[in-house]
């Protein structure tokens, strides 16, 4: 059992045990409910990012899309007087457009996805700041079908869960199916592993990549909506820095940054790990300002572990 997702799982269990022993509150219903409320928002983006990374590309604009989509939707409702359904559809189309532009520039003009999506990050974040003039939008207090659908909550015993957890579970299952069991997953891995080989076998590599950029963008927008509905507010700076946290989740889980090897289970473990680290080290009393140090060190340790395992596997 030397697979990267397995070693990540072991580390996750060790981490959870350490936090649980260090602070009894870590496994309290309230704290678990809290972690589960945050988990899907980054986790959903991480699913899209896993597929995209496996195909050999990545997207730095997801955090900005996370911020822009709900801002646009809520502006349309609050200032434009549109129905929430129409506004959500407009938000969806916006995310599709952003993803399509990323994908088209990367595949058809041949600029690296790092540069393209970094520029897109600035454009999208800038757009969110400009259309809101930098201010968060008025609070949002209209329960309705869509709010319940994306951010409704329910209790199981003393645990309080959000519907977003179902979205994360459902989308995870879909992603596992697509990447590991469907024809498309074979194509995605092949494209990331050796694009020319895939193209030589008639795999439409560019089209697959463009759709994955669109998917990642749409998932980032969906996560942004879930977050905005949950806290009943949309801020133009929401999601700042999420792109790196999401990529960290994905690679900590064992997906290769260079493409070809992706694991959705690993990403789920990675998402749980980063979430519980952020939560746990605050609980055990690491000063708030120091906690990024710990997050960074743990991520580095994970990556070193993966690299060593990889080397060992290659040698044997």
């Amino acid at each position, binding site marked *: 059992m030397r697979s990267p997702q397995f070693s990540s799982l072991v580390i996750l269990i060790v981490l959870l045990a350490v936090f649980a022993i260090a602070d009894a509150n870590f496994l309290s219903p309230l704290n678990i409910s809290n972690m589960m409320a945050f988990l899907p928002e980054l986790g959903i983006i991480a699913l899209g990012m896993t597929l995209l990374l496996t195909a050999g590309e990545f997207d730095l604009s997801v955090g900005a899309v996370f911020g822009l989509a709900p801002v646009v939707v809520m502006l349309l409702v609050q200032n434009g007087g549109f129905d929430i359904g129409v506004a959500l559809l407009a938000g969806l189309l916006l995310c599709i457009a952003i993803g399509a532009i990323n994908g088209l520039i990367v595949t058809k003009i041949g600029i690296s996805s790092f540069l393209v999506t970094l520029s897109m990050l600035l454009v999208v974040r800038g757009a969110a700041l400009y259309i809101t003039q930098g201010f968060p939008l008025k609070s949002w207090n209209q329960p309705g079908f869509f709010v319940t659908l994306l951010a409704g909550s329910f209790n199981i015993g003393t645990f309080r869960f959000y519907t977003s957890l179902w979205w994360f579970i459902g989308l995870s299952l879909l992603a596992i199916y697509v990447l590991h069991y469907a024809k498309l997953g074979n194509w995605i891995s092949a494209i990331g592993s050796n694009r020319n080989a895939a193209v030589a076998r*008639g795999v439409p590599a560019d089209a697959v990549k463009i759709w994955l950029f669109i998917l990642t963008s749409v998932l980032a927008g969906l996560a942004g909506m879930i977050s905005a509905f949950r806290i009943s507010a949309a801020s133009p700076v929401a999601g700042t820095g999420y792109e790196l946290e999401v990529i960290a989740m994905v690679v900590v889980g064992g997906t290769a940054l260079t493409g070809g090897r992706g694991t959705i289970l690993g990403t789920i473990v990675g998402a749980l790990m980063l979430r519980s680290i952020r939560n746990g080290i605050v609980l055990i009393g690491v000063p708030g300002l120091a906690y990024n140090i710990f997050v960074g060190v743990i991520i580095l340790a994970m990556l070193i572990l993966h690299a060593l395992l990889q080397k060992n596997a290659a040698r044997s």
Partner: protein
Amino acid sequence: MEVLRLQNLQKSFGSVRALKSASFTLNEGEVVALLGDNGAGKSTLIKAISGVFPVDRGDIYVRGQKVSIRSTRDAMDLGIETIHQDTSLAPDLSIARNLFLGREPVNLKWLGVFAPLDLARLRDAASALLKRVGISKKLDADALVSTLSGGERQSIAISRAMQFAAKVIILDEPTNNLGVEETHGVLRFVKEVRDAGHSVLLITHNIHHVFQVADRIIVMRRGEIVAEQTVAGTDLLTVESIITGADMSALLKETRAK
């Protein structure tokens, strides 16, 4: 019986006439070696046949039928499989998944790209094929291609082409970067491929290999086919002199006198 016939193929890139005029015929169950120095037009020719780009002028016939090849997919559908040195396999995928890349057996076909892979069929077909390949070391169909040696990878790529009953298998420098033993393994495999009834177009720099496996030799120089000979009717020095265009007749006479 004629499998592939090229008639007066021409291709230019801007003002460079990479392929001035190429015509030849490939018959069933024969290995034809395509020789030529760098820039002679070998790659342009095989790229045209394998659908990487269209030709400017000229016709391609497969089993006597005139065909148009606009994409690699077109070529594959016509039974023309090209195996490049480095671009034929995805190292992070298993042998089984590589064998069926782009032609995956699926259940619920109506789901399109979301259709589930028929994993049982994938594994069975891959195992059967590995048995046929007869690589001494026992290979697992689920093993990642990245764990294979260069020779094993070539053999897998060639057998994949055979798997799809390719009429024509184009091998682009199949023995580059291979060790001596592995090279012999691949060449032996090429003979088996021919004996199984496939036609092979072999592109190589190594003339010695040509004399080991080929039935006929075609030499290209500056975008044209300058010679076409059976292996039995020629020798190494003659072929070498045709490739370089140098007059080696003196040397030839000397050698023959010995």
